[in-house]
């Protein structure tokens, strides 16, 4: 009998789905990716085109996590102050606001 932790299969399925989705986005990457790094983190961004528009794929090569942001989400970043990002950094590897919450 194989031991599994609770939710393992769901997590694995979710990871597969995310990997497939990332692959599909990268199939339509445009231009060269931009890489930035310092002693704490590394990030890679590239423009990806969907059928009807474009997003910015932001990836962490170390953790394998990624997010594809639309222009309005990117603009929303410009409205933030350091405190917003401090809160995000202070809550590592998870979202600041849960999906079922409605936000501030």
């Amino acid at each position, binding site marked *: 009998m194989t031991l599994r932790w609770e939710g393992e299969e769901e997590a694995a399925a979710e990871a597969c789905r995310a990997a497939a989705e990332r692959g599909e986005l990268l199939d339509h990457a445009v231009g060269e990716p931009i890489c930035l790094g310092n002693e704490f983190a590394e990030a890679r961004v590239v423009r990806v085109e969907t*059928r*009807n*528009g*474009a997003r910015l794929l932001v990836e962490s090569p170390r953790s394998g996590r990624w997010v594809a942001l639309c*222009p309005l989400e990117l603009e929303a970043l410009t409205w933030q102050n350091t405190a917003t990002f401090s809160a995000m950094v202070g809550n590592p590897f998870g979202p600041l606001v849960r999906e079922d919450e409605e936000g501030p």
Partner: protein
Amino acid sequence: MRAVRSPLGAHASPLLRTGRSLPFCDERHQRAHQWLVDEAWLLDAQAYEEWLDLLTEDIHYLMPVRVTTALGAGYDTSPGMAHFDEDKYSLSRRVARFLTEHAWTEDPPSRLRHHLGNVRTFATEEPDHLVVDSATLLYRSRGDVREASVVSAGREDLLRRTPHGWKLARRTVMVDDAVIRMQNLAIFL
């Protein structure tokens, strides 16, 4: 703007314009302008066999479908779709159909007027090729019940000098409507 790509246009010449538009007194511009005026009269008269002779064997005749997209979207044509995406064979079939006695849509024929304007000509890297921009407004009147219909478009043409005179080697028609206000495109622009 994202270049309009077509899977059916791979055979066509990829030549691009170079530099600024030629002066109106330049003989190359005058030749190109006259070519377009002569062509407009042929199209008005539906003299399609003669028109077909003005097209090179490797012609690509493209009229993309325009879509309304955001200013920053980077495209304003429908991905992978066009109204016309033609080679010599498909154009020749269209012309052949008009010459049958059973192309009802143009029998009785429309009264057509291709208004031509804003012509400017560019040199290319090859002396035997010119790129010509123009605006066209087609007025099409049918019967005596319905109002006439109008279609407005910008065009980019590639003209090629051949032993049999200048011929059209490539045309991209950028129609100005997302929804065409004409019952069909049984016409050429």
